[in-house]
C-alpha cells in the first residue's frame, strides 16, 4: 500500500499549494469585487476542482461533497450567472477556510466539524440554487469524472482542470453531427476480455477520418508501474457522416469495460449545434482564457475551437470577445477568434504544439519537491567542506608556501567555490514567507469575526525569503501577534470613528531583508498602548513595585512579562494565559528579537528581527581566560575599551559601566565560566554591551576581540549535554571547537532579578 500512501502524501502536499492559490485568488476577487478578473475566477475554480479530483481518488467523501458544491457556486460566478458581491465573497472566503480545514481533517483522519459543514453547505446550496439557474441541477447530477491529474507535479495553474470542466459540461446528446469527440479509457477488464484498443481505433477510422491523441496523464513513472492497471486513454476526433449509433456500435462489445464519452461536434461554424441550454456554457473559457487551448491531452485544437456548442446566444460583435470585464460573457467561439486572440499564447497553444503531447502553455518555473533531510545533509557536508578548506589554508600558510604559488591560487579558487556552494545550498532552504503570511489572512478574518471589530490585513514583502525551519516556527508567534493586534490593538468601530479613523482597522504585516536579517513587522492602526493601564495592571499583579518610575518603553516592554495579560476579561481569542512572553521566547529561540513601538492614538508596531538561517550564525570571536568563544552579533549593541570606560565598583565584586547616562552591570566572562578567579586590574579587557530579553543590558568583559565571521552551528547536546551559558558550538578554521556564548543565559544567571536596580533598561 505504500504506493498509495505516497500518492496520498503527494495529494496533500498539492492541496497545500492549491489551497494557497485558492486563498490568494479569493482575496484578489474580494479586493476587486465589482469586476472580478475572470482569470482569477478560473484559478480559484481550478484549485477547488483539483482538490475535488484528488479527494475523489482517495474517497474522501466529505471533501468531495463540499468541494463539489463550492465548485458549483464558483462555476456560476465564472460563467457570470452570479455577480460577485460582498456577501457572496464572504461566503466564498469562509468556504475556502473550511475547505482547508477539511483537507487538514482528511489528512489527519479527523472527522470534520459536521455542524459547520452543514451550515456552509446550506449556504452554498442556497447560492447555487438561487442564482445558479438551470445549470445547477444539470451539473449536480453529472457524474464526477476523475482524471488523476492532481498528481501532476506541475504546480502552476492547471489548465487541465478548467478545460476538463469545460469538456464535461459540453456533454451533449444532440446536434447535427459533423463529427464526434470521443474520450475512451479502457478498464483493465477490457484487456481481460481480449479486446484490443487498436482494433477499436481502426474500426472508428473506417467511419471517417480520425485524429487520435493518447491521454498519458494517468501513466505512472516506471518505478511505480503496475502492470495490472490501465493507464492509457485516448481522445479521438472523428470526422464522419455516420450517425451516433454507428459510432456507438463500434464500442458495443466493450461498453461495459471502458469509460466512454461521445460528444457530437457541430459541423463547423456553419451549423451551430443546438446545444443544450441547460449546460453551463463553456465559452467562459474564451479569449481571456486561452489556457484551455493548451490542454493537449484533453482537446484536439480544432475541436477546442469548435466544440462549445453551447454558444447559441446571439453572438455579440467580435470586440466583446476581448472585454473580460463583462461578467456574462458568451464569447464568440468561431475558430478564428481563438487563433487570432491576442491572448492566444503566441503559438505556445498553437495547434501543432497542442497535438504534440503534454504542453503546458504557462511558463511557471519548474520546481521539484525534495525531502528536507537531503538538503540538510547537503548543508552539513558543505559546512564540513568549508571547515576543511579553512584547515587546509591554515596548513598551507604555516608551511610557508608563497601566496603566489599555484597551490595557494588553487586554494583560493576552492575557497570561492565553497562559499558560493554554501550560499546556493542555503538558498535551497530559503522559502518565501508568503505561505505564512497568507495564513494570517484567515487569522485576521476569524479574529475579526470573534471580536466584532472590522479588520483587514495588508501584507507587504511576502516574497522575502527565510530559512524553511524559521518559517515553520514563525507561524505560532505570528498568529499570536496578529490575534493580539486585532483583539487588543484595534479599538471598536465607534471609538475609531470618534477618533476620525475608518471603522475598519488595518493590520499591516510586512517583511524585508535588512542587513543580513529578516525584519517582520506587525503593525496595527489602533489606539496604541494604554500605558497608565498597563502600568497599573503590572503593579496590581506584582510584576513591578507600586509607584515605580518607568519610561514609556519600559512600560511597553511590560507586555512581554510572563503573566501579563492586559485584557480585563479573558477573551476567547487571545486571552489564553499565553502572553507575549511566549512570543518573545519563541522568537528568541530562533535567534531573533522582538521590539515594540507604540504611538498613542496611532497604533502599535511589533518588530521581529530574525536570522536568515538557523544553521549559520554571525558571530564575534572573542577570547578570555585562555579560551576562544563566539558571541552572537545579534545580541551585541556596542563594544568599549575597559581602560577608557567609566567603571564604578559596587560592593565587593560588583562593577557597573556608566555609559551615556546608563548604568550597565559588568559580567566578566572568564569568571562567569569559571575559567579565572578574578580579573587582574592591570589587564583591562574589552567590554561588549549586549542586549537581552526585555531590553536588559549587560557588559560582558573579555580579553580580546578577534574577528567577526559566520560560523556553522554545531550541537553540543547531541554528544554531551547542555552547558550553562553556552548555546552551541562551532568549528574554527584550525579544526578546533569554539563554544557559542548565550548572552541571555549569562545575563540572567549573573543577575537573575529582571528588575534589579542594577540592571539598566533600554532608553
Amino acid at each position: 500500500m505504500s504506493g498509495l500512501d505516497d500518492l496520498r502524501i503527494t495529494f496533500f502536499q498539492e492541496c497545500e499549494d492549491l489551497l494557497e492559490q485558492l486563498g490568494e485568488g479569493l482575496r484578489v476577487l474580494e479586493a476587486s469585487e465589482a469586476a472580478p478578473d475572470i482569470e482569477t475566477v478560473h484559478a480559484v475554480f481550478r484549485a477547488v476542482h483539483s482538490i475535488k479530483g484528488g479527494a475523489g481518488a482517495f474517497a474522501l467523501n466529505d471533501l468531495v461533497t463540499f468541494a463539489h458544491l463550492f465548485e458549483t457556486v464558483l462555476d456560476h460566478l465564472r460563467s457570470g450567472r452570479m455577480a460577485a458581491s460582498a456577501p457572496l465573497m464572504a461566503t466564498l472566503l469562509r468556504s475556502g477556510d473550511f475547505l482547508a480545514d477539511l483537507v487538514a481533517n482528511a489528512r489527519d483522519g479527523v472527522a470534520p466539524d459536521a455542524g459547520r459543514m452543514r451550515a456552509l453547505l446550506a449556504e452554498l446550496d442556497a447560492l447555487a440554487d438561487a442564482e445558479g439557474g438551470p445549470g445547477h441541477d444539470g451539473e449536480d447530477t453529472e457524474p464526477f469524472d476523475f482524471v488523476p491529474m492532481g498528481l501532476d507535479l506541475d504546480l502552476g495553474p492547471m489548465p487541465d482542470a478548467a478545460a476538463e470542466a469545460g469538456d464535461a459540461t459540453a456533454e451533449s446528446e444532440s446536434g447535427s453531427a459533423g463529427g464526434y469527440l470521443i474520450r475512451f479509457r479502457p478498464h483493465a477488464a477490457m484487456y481481460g476480455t481480449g479486446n484490443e484498443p487498436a482494433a477499436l481505433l481502426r474500426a472508428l477510422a473506417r467511419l471517417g477520418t480520425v485524429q487520435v491523441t493518447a491521454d498519458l496523464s494517468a501513466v505512472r513513472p516506471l518505478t511505480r508501474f503496475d502492470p495490472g492497471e490501465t493507464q492509457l486513454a485516448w481522445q479521438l476526433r472523428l470526422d464522419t457522416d455516420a450517425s451516433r449509433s454507428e459510432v456507438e456500435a463500434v464500442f458495443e462489445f466493450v461498453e461495459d469495460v471502458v469509460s466512454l464519452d461521445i460528444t457530437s461536434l457541430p459541423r463547423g461554424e456553419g451549423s451551430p449545434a443546438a446545444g443544450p441550454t441547460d449546460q453551463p456554457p463553456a465559452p467562459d473559457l474564451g479569449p481571456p482564457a486561452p489556457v484551455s487551448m493548451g490542454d493537449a491531452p484533453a482537446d484536439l485544437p480544432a475541436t477546442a475551437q469548435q466544440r462549445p456548442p453551447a454558444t447559441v446566444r446571439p453572438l455579440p460583435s467580435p470586440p466583446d470577445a476581448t472585454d473580460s470585464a463583462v461578467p456574462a460573457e458568451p464569447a464568440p467561439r468561431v475558430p478564428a477568434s481563438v487563433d487570432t486572440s491576442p491572448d492566444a499564447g503566441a503559438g505556445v497553444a498553437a495547434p501543432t504544439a497542442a497535438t504534440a503531447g503534454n504542453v503546458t502553455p504557462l511558463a511557471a518555473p519548474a520546481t521539484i519537491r525534495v525531502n528536507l533531510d537531503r538538503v540538510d545533509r547537503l548543508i552539513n557536508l558543505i559546512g564540513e567542506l568549508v571547515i576543511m578548506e579553512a584547515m587546509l589554508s591554515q596548513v598551507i600558510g604555516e608551511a610557508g608556501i608563497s601566496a603566489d604559488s599555484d597551490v595557494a591560487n588553487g586554494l583560493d579558487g576552492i575557497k570561492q567555490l565553497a562559499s558560493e556552494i554554501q550560499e546556493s545550498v542555503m538558498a535551497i532552504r530559503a522559502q518565501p514567507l508568503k505561505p505564512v503570511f497568507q495564513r494570517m489572512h484567515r487569522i485576521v478574518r476569524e479574529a475579526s469575526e470573534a471580536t466584532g471589530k472590522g479588520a483587514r490585513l495588508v501584507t507587504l514583502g511576502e516574497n522575502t525569503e527565510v530559512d524553511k525551519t524559521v518559517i515553520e516556527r514563525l507561524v505560532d508567534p505570528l498568529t499570536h501577534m496578529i490575534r493580539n493586534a486585532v483583539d487588543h490593538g484595534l479599538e471598536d468601530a465607534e471609538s475609531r470613528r470618534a477618533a476620525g479613523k475608518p471603522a475598519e482597522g488595518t493590520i499591516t504585516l510586512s517583511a524585508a531583508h535588512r542587513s543580513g536579517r529578516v525584519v517582520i513587522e506587525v503593525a496595527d492602526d489602533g489606539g496604541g498602548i494604554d500605558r497608565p493601564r498597563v502600568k497599573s495592571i503590572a503593579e496590581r499583579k506584582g510584576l513591578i513595585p507600586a509607584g515605580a518610575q518607568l519610561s514609556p518603553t519600559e512600560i511597553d516592554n511590560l507586555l512581554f512579562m510572563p503573566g501579563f495579560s492586559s485584557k480585563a476579561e479573558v477573551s476567547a481569542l487571545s486571552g489564553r494565559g499565553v502572553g507575549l512572553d511566549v512570543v518573545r521566547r519563541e522568537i528568541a529561540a530562533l535567534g531573533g528579537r522582538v521590539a515594540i513601538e507604540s504611538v498613542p492614538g496611532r497604533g502599535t508596531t511589533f518588530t521581529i528581527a530574525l536570522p536568515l538561517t538557523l544553521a549559520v550564525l554571525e558571530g564575534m570571536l572573542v577570547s578570555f581566560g585562555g579560551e576562544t568563544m563566539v558571541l552572537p552579533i545579534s545580541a551585541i549593541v556596542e563594544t568599549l575599551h575597559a581602560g577608557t570606560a567609566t567603571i564604578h565598583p559596587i560592593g565587593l565584586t560588583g562593577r557597573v559601566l556608566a555609559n551615556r547616562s546608563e548604568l550597565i552591570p559588568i559580567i566578566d566572562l572568564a569568571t562567569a565560566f569559571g575559567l579565572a578567579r578574578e580579573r587582574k586590574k592591570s589587564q583591562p579587557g574589552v567590554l561588549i554591551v549586549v542586549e537581552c530579553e526585555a531590553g536588559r543590558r549587560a557588559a560582558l568583559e573579555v580579553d580580546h576581540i578577534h574577528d567577526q565571521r559566520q560560523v556553522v552551528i554545531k550541537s553540543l547536546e547531541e554528544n554531551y549535554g547542555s552547558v550553562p551559558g553556552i548555546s552551541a558550538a562551532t568549528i574554527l578554521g584550525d579544526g578546533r571547537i569554539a563554544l557559542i556564548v548565550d548572552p541571555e543565559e549569562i545575563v540572567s544567571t549573573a543577575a537573575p532579578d529582571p528588575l534589579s536596580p542594577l540592571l539598566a533598561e533600554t532608553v
Partner: protein
Amino acid sequence: MTETSAQNLTGRQDVVSFRLAEQDFCIDINVVREIRGWTPTTALPHAQSYVKGVINLRGSVVAVVDLAARLGLGTTAPTARHVIIIVTLGRQTVGVLADVVSDILTIGEEHMKPVPELASEVARDFITSVITFEDGRMLRRIDLGRVLPELSPSLSPEASRGQVPVPA
C-alpha cells in the same frame, strides 16, 4: 588469546585493551568506533573535572573524558602519544582518553573473574570483572555505561541513580 575475527562464539567476547595509569583495562569492542591520536580539546565550562573538553570529530562535537581521572587514578596530562578511543554509548559519541591501546583480544567467559573484595575504591564501582593471564598480567573490564552516566543519562538509569558518586 590472540586476535581473532569478531565472530561471536558463545561465551567469548572481543575486547579492546588499553593502558591507563600503569594499569591494563579493556572495554567491549562493540562500543568502539575508532581510535585516534590526541588532539587538543576545547574546555567546557561547568563541566565535570574529568571531562577534558570537546574535539571536532569530522564535524561532530565530541566530549573527551579522562578515564584515569574518572576512575580516581589521577589526572592525565595528555601528550601527542596519548590516544582517544571514540566510543558510542547509547546515542552519544564520547572520546575516552587512554595512555596507549594495547590489543584486541577474544576472551572466554570462563576467564572472567569477579572483582575481588577490596577496600572501597572508586574504581571498583566501574570494574565489572577481571581477567588474569598466565604471564601475570591482569585486565580490568570496564562498563563504560556506568563510568560515564552523566554523558549518557539514557543508558543505565540504575547506575546514574546511586552507585556512582557524582562530584558536585
